[in-house]
């Protein structure tokens, strides 16, 4: 049996901080934001007050095109807490701007995820005011067992 992966609702969230607020505000507006260093150009994520490329404090928020590639993933069948519906697919996605995010994949069969899969951001509200940047296949979903 295959399962098309879907967003969650009512999951645990941790408070937004002053450092991360611009990112979460962007999600609420349908934007995927990251910090770019004005000195060395490094794309930084998660939010930081120092560039991880050169330690500069010259960071500006940019909007990502929201396109990337699956670097690694795991389909979870035993949820971390009962608040999560299984299965869900945790993934590391390499964004085209040169940074990396943890996310969940949606809109694809759990068995069809592959390394190198092209994905695009797909924001979904998960309860309260929080909107999360899920990722789904950029192109037509592959069929199971391809």
């Amino acid at each position: 049996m295959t399962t098309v992966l879907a967003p969650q609702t009512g999951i645990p969230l941790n408070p937004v901080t002053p450092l991360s607020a611009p990112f979460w505000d962007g999600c609420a507006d349908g934007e995927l934001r990251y910090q770019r260093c004005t000195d060395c150009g490094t794309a930084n994520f998660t939010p930081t007050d120092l560039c991880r490329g050169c330690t500069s404090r010259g960071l500006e928020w940019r909007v990502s095109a929201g396109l990337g590639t699956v670097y690694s993933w795991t389909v979870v069948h035993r949820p971390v807490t009962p608040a999560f519906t299984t299965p869900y697919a945790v993934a590391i996605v390499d964004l085209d701007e040169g940074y990396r995010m943890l996310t969940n994949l949606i809109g694809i069969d759990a068995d069809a995820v592959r390394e190198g899969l092209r994905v695009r951001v797909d924001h979904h509200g998960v309860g309260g005011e929080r909107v999360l940047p899920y990722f789904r296949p950029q192109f037509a979903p592959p069929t199971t067992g391809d």
Partner: protein
Amino acid sequence: MAPGSHPYRGVAIAGVHNTAQARALPGHTSLSITVDAVHGALADAGLTLDDVDGVSAADLSARLIHDLRVGPAWRGTQYGLGMIAEAAAAIAAGMCDVAVVASGEAGVYTERAATAPWTRPENEFVIPWGLFTAAEFALIARRHMIEYGTTEDQLAVVAATIRNNGHVNPDAVYHGRGPYTPADIRASRPIADPFRLLDCAITSEGGCALVLTAADRAPDLPHAPVYLLGMASDCLGPAYQHPPAYDLAGRRAGQPSAGLVGQRAADRAFRTAGLSRADVDVLELYDPFSFEVIRQLEAFGFCAPGEGGPFVADGHIAPDGNHPVTTDGGLLSYSHAGSNPQMLQRAIRAVQQVRGTCASTQIPGARVALASAGGSGALFSQVALFGTERP
């Protein structure tokens, strides 16, 4: 290293002890089971609380110094295998004479519908994605499978081997649960693929402790001393806050990435010990998940990167193989009593192996044992070497 210059030459491991380990230890708290472990290790060393002037017990250090009334005393601040090296360095530097290194957990894991509390991240960019320790480590294992073709069958060989060591260990929480074949591992329910239930550490409660003394006291003690021959650790960042990526690396060229975390530490531990990989008789590898054993065999230099899967499938890690691993059943079967005890317990088993006192799966003639802790999914690794010969 020149004779007499070894950093831990003046330090002996005089006592070790594990309390009873169980899925639950009703009536115990983390403090009470840790104190039981302290008493047990001191008895093993032929010493008493009156002899102790150093305590390392992570966040319980100061409380133990106060409640056991062993102060004023040296207080350790490290965790895992770093506790042992820190205590040994303190003795070598003249900061104390008898140090107790202890850890224990009980009564912590009560909400069984969720994964164990020490496996659940709290970071705002991690928690909404449903990660826990198994998923973190699965992301590294998956990448290894992509890069090198490592198979779930090879992972299952690791889990079956170590769980069978626990099956025959009367002290293991899962004593008598086997024996297992790799097919049994593959038939267990999926958790976070490629990991199935039997690829993952158990959860349990228990305490453990070691006693270190100045080596000049060793002739008066009941057991022949065991020596810390080398120890080092590697860290690539805070655990469970950033994507656990196989290729995560720092700025220095040529240094290992997260997939090989521990390589630098192993090189340094062997250099301090003046030993080579071939000198190691038994590897008490940290085994939170089956794949981590394959990864550590590569990172620590017992086989080349990418060769760990075929290496374990060829029988090297069996008790009668040339690299027997995790002989008490490890975290997969012996015990996984919280975040810190499980790491110290690899060292305790290593000491028991070179003493020759293991009740099960004693490796005949073992004189040098490697213990490890930490793992790629948590972005750190610790390596320690123990032996019977004074360095």
